[in-house]
């Protein structure tokens, strides 16, 4: 399969890249790892006239960790997995990156491409909603910020304007001792999720101090489960509160019936992913009473 013809541009700086994208308008597309765009071009489902290669831009390649965590758009999944510093403060990034595609694709695929493409099957968008990330959007007109929770409009439709790119991601460093889990049900390595859920929570004794839940591939956008926080925070993780969270999550899911399963099946599995992610996050959180509180989970 041979893609359509295009002009390949390699800007030397971010500003040059933004000018090229402005001048190219709707005919130009930014290129990072290309692991989504190139297959689409081979299938002729995308046929940009101009590709602007952003991989070489050092401005987009940083991972910096302070009160908040900044990750440049061109950081690859492989680099995310390999960063011990990032793993020490936010291990769910590695856990999620490891279930994206396969090793070869993770060397090339980037976090910026994963979040900006708007593919509902991508795993990072729900994680970014779970972590309450902010995307940094830049164009030749300037810079603006959009919350991951507000960025996605429909499949492949996002807040990005023509000529605008995601240059980086910022999110608050999760509280030390937090529990986390990304649970993804898939048919095989490299598949998109049949259903997946990201959970980050912290505990104070037996009570939930903070909690955040988001879902992958269960609608035409990632889903942030707003009600989960109300249900979980301040309560104990009993069968009833977990069941209520699953119900709240299932109520907003709208998966399509496809090769991965019927709408009903995928919704049910979405609930199960939420349950497993909460349970695993709780067991990983400091302050979890060993055995006692969670003894019933194993029955």
């Amino acid at each position: 399969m041979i893609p359509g013809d295009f002009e390949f541009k390699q800007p030397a700086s971010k500003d040059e890249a933004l000018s090229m994208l402005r001048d190219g308008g709707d005919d130009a597309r930014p290129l990072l790892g290309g692991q989504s765009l190139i297959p689409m071009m081979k299938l002729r489902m995308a046929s940009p006239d101009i590709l602007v290669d952003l991989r070489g831009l050092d401005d987009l390649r940083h991972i910096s960790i302070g009160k908040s965590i900044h990750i440049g758009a061109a950081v690859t999944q492989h680099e995310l997995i390999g960063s011990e510093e990032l793993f020490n403060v936010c291990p769910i990034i590695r856990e999620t990156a490891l279930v994206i595609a396969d090793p070869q694709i993770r060397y090339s695929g980037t976090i910026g491409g994963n979040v900006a493409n708007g593919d509902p099957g991508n795993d990072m968008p729900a994680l970014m909603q779970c972590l309450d990330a902010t995307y940094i959007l830049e164009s030749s007109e300037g810079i603006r910020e959009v919350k991951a929770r507000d960025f996605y409009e429909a499949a492949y439709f996002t807040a990005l304007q023509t000529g605008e790119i995601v240059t980086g991601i910022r999110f608050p460093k999760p509280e030390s001792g937090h529990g986390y889990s990304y649970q993804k049900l898939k048919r095989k390595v490299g598949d998109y999720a049949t259903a997946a859920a990201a959970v980050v929570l912290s505990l104070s004794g037996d009570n939930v101090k903070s909690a955040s839940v988001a879902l992958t591939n269960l609608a035409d956008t990632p889903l942030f489960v707003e009600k989960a926080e109300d249900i979980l925070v301040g309560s104990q993780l009993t069968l009833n509160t977990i069941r209520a969270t699953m119900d709240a999550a299932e109520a907003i899911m709208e998966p399509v019936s496809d090769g991965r399963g019927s709408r009903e099946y995928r919704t049910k599995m979405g609930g199960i992913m939420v349950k497993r992610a909460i349970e695993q996050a709780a067991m990983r959180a400091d302050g979890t009473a060993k055995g006692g509180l969670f003894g019933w989970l194993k029955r």
Partner: protein
Amino acid sequence: MAKTLIQLTVNGEPHEVAVNPRDLLIHTLRETLGLTGAHIGCDTSHCGACTIDIDGQSSKSCTMFAVQANGSNITTIEGMAGADGTLHVLQEAFREMHGLQCGFCTPGMIMRAHRLLEENPTPTEEEIRIGISGNLCRCTGYQNIVKAIQHASETLTSNVEA
């Protein structure tokens, strides 16, 4: 569109090649440079038969434009054996442990295993299975491929110790 001149170092040899922007790296390797070891299997970045090593990373060369590889250092299966034809330890291990039947996936498997062992010289069986999860084989059921990589790992590690 006008052709672009790109520089590639492939298996240690410098090349200057004129490519169209839309030329995929696998086609440049196979058709322009005559290196037909990397295979086109699925052509959709699922099967891994086109895997090559590029600047120290495993890459599916069917999902990369040749222009993106400009200036890079590439190793394909043709670059694994010694100049005198002595098989690379991984090639020898695949032969020894019957790590192939039809051989179609083998160039990709070996290139991926090469990078895996460079990064992790003593992988566990699970790490090997995760490491080659982007490469499909329809003959062997993977068991002997895993054994071959374990065997190569042992040989390479004992060579270093000796």
